[in-house]
C-alpha cells in the first residue's frame, strides 16, 4: 500500500488531534476555568494589591511591570500543566497505544495537542489582558509592536509546550506529570525579572535570572508594550524560542517513537 505520509497527512493528522483536544478543553470547563481564567486573575490581583505596595521598581509603576510578567508566567503554567498532564494521561490510559497502532504520523499526536494548547493560551491571554486593564495597566507602544509582543509570547509558550510534552511522555501518570512539570517551572519563572529586579538577588541567582529566557521574554514585553526598543532581549527571546522548540520537539518525538510502557 501507499505510505500516506508527507506534510499534507502530517498536518491533517495534527488537525484531527487538535480538534479532539479542543473538544476536550471546551468540555472540561473546570480545567479551562482553573488554568485559563481563575489562576491568572488571582495572580494579577495578588501581585497588584498585596505585594505591589512593597515592591519598588525602576520607573515606579509596578502594575506596568507586573502585567507582562504575569502574562509570561501564566502562559508557561498553563501550557506545561495542560500538555504534560494530558499526554501522561493518554499514555497511562492506553489512548496513546491506540494512536500508535494506527498508520498515522506519530508526531502529529504531539503537534495537535500543542496547537490546541496555543488556542487555550490565547484565551488565557485575553482574560489576563482584560483583568490587567482593570487594575490600571495601559499600552503605550505602537499597535504593531504590541501585536508582535503577543505573537512572540504565544511562540514562547509553544516552545515550552514541547518541553512539557517531553516531560509528559516521561511521566508514569498524570499526577507525576503535574509534579514534574511544576517543580522546575515555579522557580524558573520566579528566578527572573518577573516580580523583583534581578539586581536585588545574590550573585549566582542573579546570574541565572539575568540569563533566563523568562527574563528576556518579560523584558521584551515590557519594552514593546510601553513603546521602547527591547534591544537584545527580543533577539535573545527569539533564539531561545527556536532552540527550545528544535531540541525538545526532537526529544519528545524520539521518546514517543521508542516508548515502551
Amino acid at each position, binding site marked *: 500500500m501507499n505510505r500516506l505520509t508527507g506534510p499534507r*497527512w502530517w498536518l491533517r493528522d495534527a488537525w484531527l488531534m487538535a480538534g*479532539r483536544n479542543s473538544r476536550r478543553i471546551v468540555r472540561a470547563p473546570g480545567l479551562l476555568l482553573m488554568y485559563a481564567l481563575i489562576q491568572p486573575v488571582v495572580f494579577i490581583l495578588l501581585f497588584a494589591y498585596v505585594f505591589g505596595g512593597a515592591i519598588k521598581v525602576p520607573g515606579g509603576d509596578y502594575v506596568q511591570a507586573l502585567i507582562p510578567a504575569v502574562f509570561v508566567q501564566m502562559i508557561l503554567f498553563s501550557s506545561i500543566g495542560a500538555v504534560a498532564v494530558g499526554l501522561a494521561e493518554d499514555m497511562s490510559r*492506553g489512548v496513546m497505544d491506540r494512536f500508535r*497502532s494506527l498508520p498515522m504520523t506519530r508526531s502529529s499526536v504531539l503537534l495537535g495537542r500543542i496547537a490546541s494548547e496555543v488556542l487555550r493560551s490565547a484565551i488565557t491571554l485575553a482574560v489576563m489582558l482584560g483583568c490587567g486593564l482593570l487594575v490600571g495597566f495601559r499600552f503605550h507602544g505602537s499597535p504593531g509592536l504590541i501585536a508582535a509582543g503577543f505573537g512572540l509570547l504565544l511562540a514562547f509558550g509553544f516552545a515550552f509546550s514541547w518541553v512539557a510534552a517531553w516531560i509528559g511522555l516521561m511521566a508514569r501518570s498524570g499526577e507525576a506529570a503535574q509534579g514534574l512539570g511544576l517543580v522546575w517551572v515555579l522557580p524558573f519563572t520566579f528566578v527572573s525579572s518577573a516580580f523583583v529586579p534581578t539586581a536585588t538577588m545574590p550573585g549566582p541567582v542573579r546570574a541565572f535570572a539575568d540569563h533566563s529566557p523568562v527574563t528576556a521574554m518579560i523584558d521584551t514585553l515590557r519594552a514593546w508594550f510601553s513603546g521602547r526598543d527591547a534591544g537584545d532581549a527580543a533577539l535573545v527571546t527569539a533564539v531561545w524560542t527556536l532552540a527550545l522548540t528544535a531540541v525538545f520537539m526532537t526529544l519528545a518525538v524520539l521518546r514517543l517513537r521508542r516508548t*515502551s510502557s
Partner: protein
Amino acid sequence: MIRVENLRKAYRGVVALDGLDLDVAEGSIAALLGPNGAGKSTLIRILATLLRPDSGRAEVGGRSVTAQPYQVRALIGLTGQFTAVDDLLTGHENLVLVGRLYRLSGKEAHRLADELLGAFELGGVAGRRAGTYSGGMRRRLDLAAGLMTRPRALFLDEPTTGLDPRSRRTLWSAIRRLPEQGTTILLTTQYLEEADRLASAVTVIDRGRAIATGTPEQLKARAGGARAEVVLADPRQAPTATEVMSRYGARPTLEGETVTVPVAESALPDLLRDLDTAGVPITGLALRRPTLDDAFLALTGGDS
C-alpha cells in the same frame, strides 16, 4: 496470518518472552491463555508495533512488525488491556476520530461508525459522552474502535476483564461474529471459559513460552478423559463399589461417599447395571468431563 518464531523480550533483565512460537490461521480466533505475567500483553504489544522484540520473528499478514511496522499498522486493529476511549468525546466522535486517523474520508468514517455502533448495540447512546457509559458499553465501544480500521488482524488484550457476566456474554457474541468478515483474531485471556467459548485454537503460555497448543478439546483431552462420579447410599459399600468400578477404569478413588473412576462415556449404562447387580444402591451419578481449567492446571503444574 500471524506468525511468531522464537520471540524474545526482556525488560531490564526480567524475561517476558522466552522463545515464543505461535501461528494463527487466517480467519480464525486464537486465544493466548496464561496467568498474569506470562507474557501475553508483551506479545500483543510487539505484534501491534508498540514494542520492539529483542530477537526472533513476528509477522502479521506476511509483513514483519520490526522491518515494516507502517504496513503492519495498516492491517491491524488493537483493543488493549485498558479501555482506550476518550471519556469527553461521544461514542460516535471516538469512532470517527480513529477512522479518520486511519485515513478514511469523513463520510466513510461516519458511515462505518454508525454501522459499528449499531452492531454493538450502542446506537441509542452514540451521541452521549463515553464517560457516561457503563463498563460493558465502554468495552464494546473500545472493540468497535479497534474495528474502525477494518482490520485483517485484530488483537484483543483481555477483552472482558472486569466485566459482569452479562456484559461478558454480549461481548463474546460480538467477537464470535467477527471472523465472518474475514478478520483474524488473537485474544489473550486468563479465563479458560473465554478461550473455550471463543477460540478454535488455544495456546497456553507460561513464563514467556508456549507450553501447549491445540483446540480446546485437545487440551482438555490432555487433562485426561471423562470420569464417572458415583455417590453411594451407604459408604460401607465402598469396597464393593470400588471393585465393580475398577473393571471400567484404572484406580477408582474414594472421597467421602463418592467414588470416582475414569471411564469411556459409552460405558456408563453398563457401569450402572453392574452396580445394581452387585447390590450397591446409589444416590447420585455424574459424568464429569475435563474442563480447560483441569488442562491448565495440569499443564502449568497447578501453579496458577
